[in-house]
């Protein structure tokens, strides 16, 4: 106990846990594309809930790109898809946030770019 109190007394605040992890994505993290993707697909290591997920895409200037129809696949509940409008060349940041079947929330981000 005293050890604990010492640590709690001397220590810093806790961080956040990552639960579901992104296993792969389409386009892949860090990829450079020549044609803009029509949709962004994310695969996780856990089954996702159909609700409470969010995928946002921002461009190099930090502007939000409109996305449509984010949905978890019925046949493969580890797969989350979102449709994006045709993107001009540039660098894009994809932020995701999901709720998995065990009630844990996870979030993360990756980027990709499109060449002129």
């Amino acid at each position, binding site marked *: 106990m005293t050890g604990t109190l*010492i640590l709690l007394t001397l220590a810093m605040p*806790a961080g956040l846990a990552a639960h579901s992890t992104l296993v792969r994505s389409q386009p892949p993290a860090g990829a450079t594309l020549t044609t803009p993707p029509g949709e962004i697909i994310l695969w996780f290591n856990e089954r996702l809930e159909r*609700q409470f997920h969010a995928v946002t895409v921002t461009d190099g200037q930090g502007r939000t790109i409109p996305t449509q129809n984010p949905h978890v696949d019925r046949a493969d509940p580890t797969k989350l898809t979102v449709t994006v409008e045709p993107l001009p060349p540039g660098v894009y940041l994809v932020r995701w946030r999901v*709720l998995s*079947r065990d009630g844990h929330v996870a979030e993360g981000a990756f980027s990709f770019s499109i060449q002129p």
Partner: protein
Amino acid sequence: MIETADMLIRGIGFMGIVVSVAGPILFLVVLRPALSVTGEEGLNQEIGRRIARTCLASGLLLASATAGAVFFVGAAVTREGASLWDLALLKRVLLETAHGNILLLRMAGGIGMVLLFRFIALSPASPRLWGAATFAAFLTLATFPLSGHAAALPTREVLAMTVDGLHLFGVATWIGGLFHLRLLLGSLARDPVTIATAVRRFSPFALASAGLLIATGLINALQYVGSLTALLVTPYGLTLTAKLVLLIPLLTFGAVNFLILRPALQHTKQHDDDPLLRRLTTTMQGELGLGLVILLLVGALTALPYPVEDSPGTSDLAPVFSRLTPRWPHFSSPTAKQVWEQKLAQKGTPNPIRSADAIAYAEFNHHWAGAFVLVMGLLSLLHAFRPRLAWGRAWPLTLIGLSIFLFFRNDPGVWPLGPISFWQSLTIVHVLQHRLYVVLVAALGIVEWLGQTGRIRRTWWTYIFPGICVIGSLMLFLHAHGGLERADSLTHIQHVVIGTLGLSAGVSRWLELRVQGEDRLYGRLWGLSVTLLGLFLFLFFREQ
């Protein structure tokens, strides 16, 4: 803080279900048949009534813990912005997610059990009511694997959920059964023959449950952890390791009960001052106490991400363990002023780096705080081996010394050593927190000292200290975990070592108080745990 509350709520939920399921099984399968043979119908009904009352309380606990769990899911999904008290959102969580549906079912199960056990308490002989309550309890138990890690696995989830369910069933029949039996032991204390019958019938049952538990636990461990490295360097793996460490004394208590006390009990005919019965009560309490602590630890386990995706080779262990070597602590540290000025200089930089001085300052704090703990442990050991020596009784005074040390050293920027005034410092949340902990350590020291020297009577308050030991240690399993990454594994390992020793200290101190000087073993264990804790902080502690 929210993570600790989440962990506790999970642990309490496990306790609720385990006790609720165990009640009907213990009564219908173990006790009633045994007592029917001896023709004790009146006693049978009395035991049934008592078990039903306990289950009523555990059902209530479970329903409340589940309501709490819904809030935590709500809190997690609204991390950005919306209020936790947003009832529309909680309704969406409950109705629109599979996880929420299962929690709703669990809440309904808990409430259903409360009602059924209430009726049973009124008419304990009704087989229909017992049947319905058993059904409700099993249905509610099934909601646990359906909402845990197993339910989210991408493949083989049905197998994983089945194994998880069996594991929980094993916990219920062993630890839950023990809980009821311990309560019954209190109320049947004047009837040693019934106790002997109950214990004799229960023991093989507990043994089989322990076997089931270990077998399914190992399958679970393979499923979620996957490698030795992950077991030793990830937060999840380390928490599981702590669980396995605690399993050793748990099994030892179980073995003492099964191999020594149970056979001896057969010959007991005496009444409630029978030393054998008292020993049985204590070892049972030890077994039960550890079991309940493990349930709280599992609260942490199920709240943490499991590391199976991350299974590096065992060679990765070397760098982590190479830093866990003993080192003589320094006798001097950078001044608070130096550390504070360096911190100020870094203000505004995008990625401030902790200076070497800040690290040395923090390590000095931990090492010398460890020295206080070490002295406390040694004095406690002295007290446990030589209770007549006045020196040993002085162990709580080290807590007062420790609190003074921490008060000065904790936060280099604030009063009395830093430029921020006392009143201003109280507006900084983490400083305020630290100061409250300091007051707590000092208060515990003073109160324990007064108790130790007989100036105040030892009543319920004596359990606050071991209680804080246990809760505080459990918090370390969640403290500063960083997900799947192993970058912070040194910190995790240190937290788990300290947490496990803290749990061991808490449980042994609790048992020491329960036996009230009759058995010195627990006092010695407490002293040993605190000594090892102090030694670890003093010689091994490193900042990341």
